[in-house]
């Protein structure tokens, strides 16, 4: 069936199956930043924005995206690059596989939280798993990015 949505500010009409997940639909349309890694809504790798809020694209049927505004990291080149520069200066992207979803969460957090404490940052991002870095380098990068101590 056909859905209409906005993807990275562009209106599209896509043919999707009734049981198709948004993460798979996005990948099949070339948004290859979308990674999936858990099948149980635990890891946060597939994070995109739906109407500006960060959401797990693996846990939403594509049908539910009908009429919505979807943003992937491909749609935020400037903001993503700005944070990725800081993240990779720390070396905290490591394998990079979790980074796009993580960056989408960080950018959403920046929009939502004003001057967050370390605790609030950690709490906001708990759903983004990383097995490489041990999280400390990511936290250093976020603090630099947000200009908080």
């Amino acid at each position, binding site marked *: 069936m056909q859905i209409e949505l906005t993807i990275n500010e562009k209106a599209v009409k896509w043919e999707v199956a009734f049981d198709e997940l948004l993460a798979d639909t996005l990948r099949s349309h070339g948004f290859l930043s979308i990674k999936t890694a858990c099948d149980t809504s635990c890891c946060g790798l597939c994070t995109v924005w739906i109407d500006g809020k960060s959401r797990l694209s693996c846990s939403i049927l594509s049908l539910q995206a009908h009429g919505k505004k979807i943003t992937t990291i491909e749609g935020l080149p400037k903001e993503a690059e700005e944070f990725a520069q800081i993240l990779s200066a720390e*070396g905290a992207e490591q394998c990079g*596989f979790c980074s796009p979803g993580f*960056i989408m969460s960080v950018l959403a957090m920046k929009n939502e939280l004003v001057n967050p404490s370390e605790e609030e940052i950690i709490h906001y991002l708990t759903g983004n798993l990383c097995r490489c870095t041990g999280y400390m380098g990511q936290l250093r990068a976020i603090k630099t990015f947000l200009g908080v101590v």
Partner: protein
Amino acid sequence: MKSVGHSIRKIDGMAIATGKPVYTEDLAMDNALVVKILRSPHAYAKIRSIDLSKAESLEGVECILTYQDVPNARFTLAGQSYPEPSPYDRLILDQIVRYVGDEVAIIAAVDEKTALLAMKKIKVEYEVMEPVLDFEQAIGHSSVVHPEEDSSCNFEIGLNKEKNIASSYHEEVGDVEEEFKRCAVVVEDVYYPQAQAHTMMETYRAFSYLDHTGRLIVVSSTQVPFHIRRQLARALQIPASKIRVIKPRIGGGFGGKQTGAGDVFAALVTLKTGKPALIIYDRKETFSCTTSRHAMRLRVKLGADQDGIIRAIDMQVLSDTGAYGEHAPTVLGCVGHYTLPLYNKTRAVRFDGYAVYTNKMPAGAFRGYGATQGTFALESIVNKLAERLKLDPTEIRLKNISKVGETFLTGQGVMLGSTSLDQCILRGKELIGWDEKFPRREVGPNKVRAVGMAITMQGSGIANIGTASAEIRLNDDGNFTLLTGATDMGTGCDTILSQMAAEILEIPMEIIIVNAGDTDTSPYDPGSYASSTTYVAGTAVVKAAEELKSKILAQSAAFLGVTRGDVELNGLAVRTLSGNQEISFAKLAELTILGTGKLQLVGYATHGSEVSPPPYVAGFAEVEVDRETGKVELIDYVAVIDCGTVINPNLARIQAEGGIAQGIGMALYEQVRYDELGKMATNTFMQYKIPTRKDVGKVRIEFEASYEPTGPFGAKSIGEVVANTPPPAISHAIYNAVGVRENHLPITPEKVFLGMQK
């Protein structure tokens, strides 16, 4: 130094962080067949019959392969230098299935839905047999996991199939029993580290196709492209020259991707159909149908004199290798190799080990590779010894650790070339606030805080086995290409190796093109494992760069009409010492490659090391334990590291923080459970808890650089050693807090709570 020693951003960092399509799945062709595996529901069974008729008749099913369709050559999935020490004990598909999840049939279809539907329509009749599930009951069990006649070993590894022993290892110097009698204090205990899962974020995957000459191309998320090529050649019974393995960016490995998984199934489909094929393991398959750390039982006995000098160590190890013997003998051996040299005042040591087959998921390589398990046991018992002797745990280490120039009993005379472990201990002690905090402080009516510590070592490469080659060319436009078979898995070795090349050639990294991890174009490298890359491949790069530098100077001198001794590098040029004449690299390239020179300048080197110098870590944990619930909160973890010269401080720091976090997971959270029929129950992140950012507390890293004379710029390794200290240090802290010695990992609140009731 301009490049080495600086925190240079990874050369692939921006691309991978912002989601550019550079991983295996991103590179697969859209029309690739989707490969799925039908897996055994039984822990131990023989296939009586397989009915494919309904599945094969489905539209879109391209092929279904069973044990009747595969070559009859046993092989190992372990990615090791040839001749592999791991037994050749598996077929691509076998009539006998040896664990829940073992492969029964390979299904290739036009899409995933069709493949999964076909899987449901395959009817298999099994003759179910009694499985060996408890590894402590494996030796002499009435069921034999490998009854086949045709499994084999490249050399003697102590395999005894009839008794379910995959490998055995014995090493003894001096008379341990006699020495224990002379000791003032003898302590012993038994430790059970679990079969930890790697849980790299990118699950196992590969895609394959035939190229324009009919060769098999396999793009694989692997740490060991050259080993995968050899493995495929043996398993598929085709010449290695007909196979090319390419490693793109990979989403983590931690040793997991030192063992093959899935490549051979996709490759077989491509060979049978001539079509591209893509296999992606889902998370459940990754948890329950690949490999894990070896679960072990370690009995350790330690004897010391009245002054706390350790005189005798006895280690008896039982290692659960599961259904197949990937890495069974080597991980077993490394338990002793990477722990016994820590304390070299011993007069006698004994190591007795067996790796046993069971009907569970195979174990394999995992960051730490036996050292992790051995460190948990040895460091825990050293902490127990310290308590018995009323010695500070840091003091007993300082009294016993090896010093530069010293040897150790089982070390065959090899002298220690570098260590700053004593400094690591002293600095760590200071950072954690040991003197104020040891052993415990009450911080509330039911809360107590305590500290614990442990030290560890690893190797750097495999002495006399691991060899790496590297090539550096001066290109036609004055740029350089570094060709290496080392496999960056996110660790940053493409960057670190080019830092080293840039340092020697005195050039900026930006003009070095790194081409790595492709068996067609890369010089041979065993791959990224055994803490090899910086130390072994790094030295190969240094040597290749030095050779190229020498050629550049000689050729430039010839063009400038002066002697070799009269020129030096100067930016992107060579000039005479007087500064009168200069020739740029671009001009030199033009004259040698395009013009009359007829000699493209290339530096090439192969390097292997006769020693495997140990990096060290001193780890300190501070925990808070709730006496009412047994909940353990990790407050602070300090790790002070000697990895020799730190080539790239930020990348080394991230490696260390990540390794510590994995160790924290192993110590506190990552529980592996099987049900009574041998099915793994902890096969998703819902059941198997890796640390989130709320679970790791604060991890602090410092480096105490030493200088390793055999390493590139004085460097040793760092990748593995960092994973080892958390289990014993955290366990020690918990004991100091509430007096509970929990020797079965992970140390969950339930275990602490029940321990406090005793």
